[in-house]
């Protein structure tokens, strides 16, 4: 039996290894999406596919990694294939890998003395994987195959040798092959470093100690989570509903969260069936978003792995928006639907733990994909997400202009983007007065303007909260909705829906105004000095104050001074 302390030492070493894998991946990657935005995650898994260590990068990757690895190993087994030493498998089929086609999951088995002792894995968002629109997200697609190349589990590296045939096949199907190869090599380098470090651990402690440590890590998480729930002492069920925008319709996501002593059930029964539109979220995404919301509210220190899922059951009806079946398109599921799943779970938790949940954040990653063909026929593609406002909180205002909930990628510097792509930025600033009113206001969104410098450019937007608004809590008002628009070269403007693909030419400008967070608490109770400070700094305008006042009047509890 391996002792507790050795387990702790192995656990720490495994966490360090996953972090180091992340750094190697970042430092050697080619596309701004990874090297600048850090849209990637790394983990160490037990041979059974359970995560035992992970570097905290992107919540949506981490929650889905294990499902991806388990599915991949199972799929290979069905084909009679084994994971051999020196193999690296890649896969992006969302129904196996657990997110969307852009995320390439790569994994490598670690063998010691002929025994499989761990799997090292990483997931990176490749800027383009083909399909109908540059950036491979969004567009008017109705099935998975229109979203890009679907890679089933294949051995891209066999016995240490890169299979250039497979690489060429994939590269012929993507718009930015040189980036694809550079980023894939970075993923491979990261796995090799991970393997090396795990082997060092095995040499030191022996393979049995490692295997036992992995299983103890999961047991530990289970104990931790049960203890946490017991300490909270909540009983009962809590429900919430929220919506996604689909053309002129709204589609609902429902959740019921049931606390029962040391167990928790999250059930999405009642959620809208899957749709022929790229906003379905595969089960891996649903698990990731639910786990994120629970961890953030219950205990940010809580460890996350299958030990947690032994205590928390996540039920999602098959064929629904939150657990679709093939061939439903899914590219927006992990970026937008994941945000709404987090929102709806947080909303239900706000009933159970009123002091621990803020009003809604903007509820979108505000995805922009731009690409096209430049002069000599070369294709290009660029992807970014834009931050927004977080919801007002029981303690204080929401935060202006920041990434919320399911994403935390960095922006790519404007100077880097302008140097690499035919675009020119026209604005990047805080969207004043967009935060919802309340005792504590919601955070303001962002305004970002991009002028296109090349003809034959395709722009896709996958956003949310243009028609619905981020909700307020305890009397707080909702945040301002997002506005996505085009200003054509000739001065005409056009407001776009939350999901759109358009053709633009040289001189046209796209303007994104992201939503503000919801307000928290009675707007009448907002302190005067906060109003004055916001006004002085231009974070709100006179109009905002006027509305605040009108929201107050009629409630008969006007503490807001009329004189201001």
């Amino acid at each position, binding site marked *: 039996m391996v002792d*507790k*302390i050795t387990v*702790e030492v192995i656990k720490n*070493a495994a966490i*360090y290894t996953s972090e180091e894998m992340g*750094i190697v991946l*970042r*430092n050697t990657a*080619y596309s*701004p999406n990874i090297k*600048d935005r850090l849209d990637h995650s790394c983990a160490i898994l037990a041979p059974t596919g359970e995560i035992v260590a992970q570097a*905290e990068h992107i*919540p949506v990757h981490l929650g889905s990694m294990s499902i991806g690895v388990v599915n991949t190993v199972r799929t290979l087994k069905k084909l009679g294939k084994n994971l051999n030493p020196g193999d690296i498998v890649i896969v992006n089929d969302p129904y196996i890998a657990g997110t969307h086609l852009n995320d390439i999951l790569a994994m490598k088995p670690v063998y010691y003395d002929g025994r499989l002792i761990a799997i090292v894995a990483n997931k990176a968002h490749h800027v383009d994987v083909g399909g109908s629109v540059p950036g491979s997200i969004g567009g008017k697609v109705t099935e998975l195959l229109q979203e890009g190349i679907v890679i089933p589990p294949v051995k891209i590296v066999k016995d240490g040798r890169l299979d250039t045939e497979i690489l060429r096949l994939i590269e012929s199907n993507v718009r930015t092959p040189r*980036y694809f190869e*550079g980023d894939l*090599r970075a993923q491979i*380098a990261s796995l*090799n*470093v991970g393997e090396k470090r795990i082997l060092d651990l095995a040499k030191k402690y022996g393979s049995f100690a490692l295997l036992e440590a992995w299983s103890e890590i999961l047991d530990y*998480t289970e*104990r*931790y989570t049960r*203890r946490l729930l017991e*300490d909270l002492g909540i009983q009962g069920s809590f429900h919430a509903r929220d919506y996604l925008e689909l053309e002129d319709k709204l589609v609902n996501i429902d959740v019921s969260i049931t606390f029962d002593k040391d167990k928790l059930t999250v059930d999405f029964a009642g959620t809208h069936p899957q749709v022929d539109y790229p906003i379905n979220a595969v089960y891996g995404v649903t698990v990731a978003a639910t786990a994120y919301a629970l*961890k*953030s*509210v219950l*205990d*940010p*220190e809580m*460890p996350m792995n299958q030990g947690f899922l032994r205590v928390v059951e996540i039920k999602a009806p098959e064929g629904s928006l939150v657990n679709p079946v093939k061939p439903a398109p899914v590219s927006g599921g992990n970026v937008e639907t994941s945000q709404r799943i987090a929102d709806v779970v947080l909303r239900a938790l706000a009933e159970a733990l009123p002091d621990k949940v*803020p009003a809604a954040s903007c509820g979108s990653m505000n995805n922009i994909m731009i690409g096209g063909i430049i002069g000599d026929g070369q294709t290009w593609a660029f992807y970014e997400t*834009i*931050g927004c406002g977080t919801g007002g*909180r029981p*303690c*204080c205002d929401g*935060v*202006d*202009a*920041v*990434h*919320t909930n399911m994403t*935390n*990628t*960095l*922006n790519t*510097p*404007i*100077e880097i983007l302008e140097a690499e792509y035919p675009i*020119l930025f*026209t*604005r*990047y*600033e*805080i969207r004043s007065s967009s935060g919802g009113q309340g005792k504590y206001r919601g955070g303001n969104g962002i305004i970002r303007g991009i002028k296109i410098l090349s003809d034959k450019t395709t722009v896709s937007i996958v956003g949310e909260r243009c028609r619905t608004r981020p909700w307020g809590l305890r009397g707080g008002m909702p945040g301002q909705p997002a506005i996505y628009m085009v200003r054509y070269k000739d001065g005409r403007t056009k407001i776009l829906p939350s999901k759109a693909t358009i053709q633009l030419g040289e001189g046209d400008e796209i303007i994104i105004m992201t939503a503000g967070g919801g307000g928290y608490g009675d707007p009448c109770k907002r302190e005067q000095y906060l109003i004055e400070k916001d006004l*002085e*700094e*231009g*974070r709100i305008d006179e109009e905002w104050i006027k509305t605040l006042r009108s929201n107050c009047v009629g409630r008969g509890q006007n503490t807001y001074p009329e004189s201001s």
Partner: protein
Amino acid sequence: MAIIGIDVGGTFTDLVLFNKESGVLEHLKVLTTPKEPVIGIMNAIEQAIDDLAKVDTIIHASTIGTNMFLGQIGIEPPKVALITNEGFIDIIEIGRQNRPELYNLFFSKPKPLVSRNHRVGVRGRIDKNGNIIENLDKEQLSRKVDDLCKEGIKVFAVSFLHSYKNPVHEIEAEKIIKDKCPDAIIVLSHRIDPEPMEYERTSTTVVNAVLKPVLSKYLDDLENTLRSSGFRGKLLIMQSSGGVSHIAEALEKPAMFIESGPSAGAVAVAFFSQLMSIEKALGFDMGGTTAKASSVIKGVPEITTMYEVGGKVHMGRLVRGSGYPVRFPYIDLAEVSAGGGTIAWIDKGGALRVGPISAGADPGPACYGLGGKDPTITDANLVLGRLPTKLAGARLLLSKELAEKAIRRLAGQLGLSVEETAWSIITIANTIMSKALRLVSVEKGHDPREFSMFAFGGAGPLHAVEIARDLGISSVIVPPRPGVFSALGLLVTDYKHSFTYPIVKQVDELSEDYLEKIFQELEEKANRILEEEGIPWTRRVFRRYIEAKYWGQGYTLLVPYYPNIRKIVETFHYIHKNRYGFMNYEEEVVIVVARLDAIGVTVKPRFPRRKRYEPHHVKPQTQRLVYFEDGWKLSNIYRTEYLEPGSLIKGPAIIEAPDSTIVVPERYEALLDNLGAFHISEV
């Protein structure tokens, strides 16, 4: 004559004095006077020496800037205006758009250094190639500067998009500000940090602008006070890169000063590793609340340019977005929350954890008897017999009983004995500290087995040998006066200035002549500065480097320069393979930056060495039971005052020095050399 080094920390001001004639090194500590640090400095000096005329050099380091940013001292940052492109005023606040904590719904971002109403956007735009696509609206700018000036703003940071390609708008803005606001302090982004990435450059500019008036007043005060007290020597300012410079130079880049205190330890390692002819050294500095690791190759501490002032550190790594980025060369220190006062506890899953909370100096570890109830690393060391109950240099008696009582609480929950629990605390703390050492070695592509470890700080030598064994390091050196070693670094620094020139071209577009010309230009610049600092030709050293990457990558690697491009490329492939495990001969190599480090070598204090010694075994002063990996061992206890060069001590043993305690496990032996350092290695 004497040299004085002074390090003003948040709580204590440390002073080291080296008497050049007698070779005696003195050290003392006084309380920092946060509101007026100069008072604390003068208190220390008065205690150390009767006549400042006997001092020819004072070297000053401080964490004062950081503490100001953290709001820990009485200095209010001055109001600063930021002049930038219209439509982009919030880049300084949006930063990289991420939040510093992933799962904390109650997070906050660092308070913006420029209030939003003092951020001024002006029409005018330069593109990626440096072409002007819209002229600067001088009239608009004049009006806005006029308003700000009337409002009483005295400090202006100017940062326009792509100014590193074409600074013309920044220079025009400078003229307008000078015209409207003649006394203003102006910092231009292309002068302070001429590289792309607008947020990092703007932030570097703003941080420097905020610091400039504060630091210039502070250093003026300090110099005047010293002069009026009879000081006629040189006052030098320690930089976060590990070098020193004159006040005038320091004020050009004030952010270089703000974290200068902690870098002194790495400088001391650099100096002693050269003295001992050690090519690769790791510094391991463990104090009361944290442990720091650094690496030194061929006498040069390794540098990072990713630094955030006032930022938080999580498991040795800087948390991105938690502070204010400054893109200057800083000595690369990995810091973890593991010091003598770090608390051990049991979490919800029943796992034993160590840190990050520290009992600090008050109440301190349980064994201090000052009311601390939580078990700390120091308590664990005491219970295991690794620490004596009476520390040689201290007045304080440590209570083993209280330490045991604190640890017993955990032992009960873990189902372990008290000593097993204490040993577990040590083991987990060691794992955490190994992580810091791995960050500066393994993760930089170095093999720790090729390194010697310098262990210092009050607690470093207690843990060093066991950590070294974990990392495969075979040689541990405990330098003389380990408790003061870090401050010693102040006395042995050189003048150091770094210069960069952006290139960003593929190697086949470049010629050796072109690179040679760039370096010559940089050297001219360096010579001018070293000339002003009075460094003679014979004491100037220039180191040339190239920062290179594969096409498409975002991160560069530092390659020593050779006047042969093929050689540079080959070296790059080799370093890339070492660091990341692969190279790609078919890929284009891009040279991003030419970098010159210009060193003005100072005259160092000479540490007296007795000439010859023969290794010989010595008798212990006493014996006691000490707990090691495989249980209690009767161990020899030595006190340094009874030892002489050549003393050879076999483990298991404990060596008690006035300011530190050294643990020598079984199968290791320690040899005292003629510098006063112990060399510990496996038998």
